């Protein structure tokens, strides 16, 4: 909560020191000077910074982020429209990251020093060494242009019209009972989500590997081997589980960071999400929309971190038990 107030204050200040007059940009070059002054008055732009922030907070408490000067609609409505597309992309990416990163890391650690390990480490190094938007372009070129397996852009083909319920197309198509449309959405989301997930997959795999390799040197692993427990079981219960605790925190941070990388991936794939909206409003110096977007993304970031902290305290008996005791 305190973090959110800080973020709002900071972004509020930054948005106001960007050069350019929002009223002038909104009204266009042909507007009269009187109209510009009137709009500036209406937006409280002539008041002191603190007064402006006061108006903003008062509105925010009523659930009102103000009007967007770009779309001329309430910012809340815009965010509600664009956020689900971004969340859908990021969540699918996050699932890919965990579902592919962890097994790769475990595989690598179990065969440490062998060729499987070397291959995995090389591939994951490639994954982390290029940013998501580079992968977005590369994957698009290879799999949508040279080999036309995946659609080049968008969330769903234009031929489908799906009623919006949750805004998550993967869910809405299922609610509509249209499995062809569902398949189509899955088809559309694979490339952008994978591009966004790649560096996370690489990082998760490398992290899990290094933590597991370290755990493999612990006495309780030797004890498990001395008692002849099966290798697979040792890998899962003795090497992976203890090393999941330090790994999970970082993976959570990576997941939250995807919200940021999503900006550029959305731009490449013409993905109608919040990030594209964010870029558009920053260029238009649409104050209310900028502050609203950043606030929502920070709130997401905090929520993800909270969930990760909870998960860590569940899987780490030391934390779990100390909480029960106190």
């Amino acid at each position, binding site marked *: 909560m305190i973090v959110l107030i800080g973020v709002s204050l900071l972004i509020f200040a930054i948005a106001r020191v960007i050069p350019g007059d929002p009223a002038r940009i909104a009204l266009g070059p042909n507007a009269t000077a009187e109209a510009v002054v009137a709009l500036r008055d209406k937006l409280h732009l002539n008041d002191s910074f603190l007064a402006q922030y006061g108006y903003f907070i008062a509105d925010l408490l009523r659930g009102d982020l103000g009007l967007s000067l770009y779309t001329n609609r309430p910012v809340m409505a815009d965010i509600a429209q664009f956020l689900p597309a971004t969340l859908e992309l990021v969540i699918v990416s996050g699932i890919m990251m965990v579902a592919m990163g962890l097994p790769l890391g475990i595989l690598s650690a179990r065969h440490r020093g062998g060729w499987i390990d070397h291959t995995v480490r090389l591939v994951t190094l490639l994954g982390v060494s290029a940013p998501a938007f580079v992968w977005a372009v590369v994957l698009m070129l290879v799999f949508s242009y040279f080999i036309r397996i995946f659609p080049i852009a968008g969330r769903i083909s234009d031929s489908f019209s799906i009623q919006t319920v949750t805004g998550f197309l993967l869910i809405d198509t299922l609610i509509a009972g249209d499995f062809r449309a569902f398949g189509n959405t899955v088809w559309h989301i694979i490339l952008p989500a994978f591009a966004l997930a790649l560096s996370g997959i690489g990082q998760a795999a490398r992290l899990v590997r290094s933590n597991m390799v370290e755990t493999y040197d612990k*006495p309780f692993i030797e004890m498990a081997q*001395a*008692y*002849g*427990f099966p290798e697979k079981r040792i890998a899962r219960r003795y090497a992976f589980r*203890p090393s999941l605790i330090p790994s999970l925190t970082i993976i959570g941070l990576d997941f939250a960071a995807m919200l940021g990388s999503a900006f550029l991936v959305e731009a490449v794939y013409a993905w109608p999400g919040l990030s594209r909206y964010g870029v558009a409003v920053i260029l238009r110096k649409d104050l209310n929309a900028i502050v609203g977007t950043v606030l929502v993304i920070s709130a997401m970031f905090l929520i993800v971190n909270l969930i990760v902290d909870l998960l860590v305290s569940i899987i780490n*008996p030391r934390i779990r038990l100390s909480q029960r005791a106190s």
Partner: protein
Amino acid sequence: MSAPTLKIDDLKLSFKTWSGTAQVLHGISLHIKKGERVALVGESGSGKSVTARIVLGMLQQLKSARIAGSVEFEGVNLETLKPASRHALRGTRMSMIFQDPTSSLNPVYPIFAQFKEVLERAQPGITNEKAREKAISALADVAINEPDRVLDSYAFQLSGGMNQRVMIAMALANNPALLLADEPGTALDVTVQAQTLKLMSELVKKHHTSVLFISHNLGVVREFADRVYVIYKGNIVEQGPTERLFDDPKHPYTRALLSAVPRITGGGIPDLDDDPGRFTAPLVAHEGYSERELLA
């Protein structure tokens, strides 16, 4: 006469490194008869612990290890066994106790989960109730009063002495023929160590378990072992019955080792023999206690 529980003959071990081969064991021979408690004594790096790991077959999987010589377990040469049947001996017919009990237990599962895994080695598919019953009786053997509380605890919640008892209970739960005790309890307080070793001693006597007791603690060895092998830099330098070896050490290294122990009566830390060249003198066996005579 039945075959000894463990018979090691001319065991050699070397590690291949970038800068050449490092010879760790230069051909050691020792044996343990059924129910016998034998100590392997030496300083750090003398090759005590690797010997135990070779018996379990844990060093063989290291690519850099070169092993020669034979290890016979209850009359069967372990090298002739298929890897799976050799692996099947671990935790069932032979088990091991480690130096630091607390860090040798998995930190993210309660004691019972690991106890059950140990019991599963001998009885695959054992039910939770049955495993719990067995674990409780095994813990009772090592004088643990609240077995239920201990089983539901994590290793980090228990004291070192308690964990050591748990380790002993686990090690003996499947009634193994051979117990390898690698410096058990060296990480513990002396009083706790004495208590737990006494428990272990009584239990192995009761079950006629053969024990290879690896230690550098001579006081403990004297109380615990029937026979002693002294190892120095990968060679057995002296062997004999415990009493006689302690009262009348024959090899220069054994003498140095015995005099190196600080006395509780004071007098400072004793001076060590300043001629380690003599420590590599050949093996001295006490009368009637050479490998040839004992195995005849």
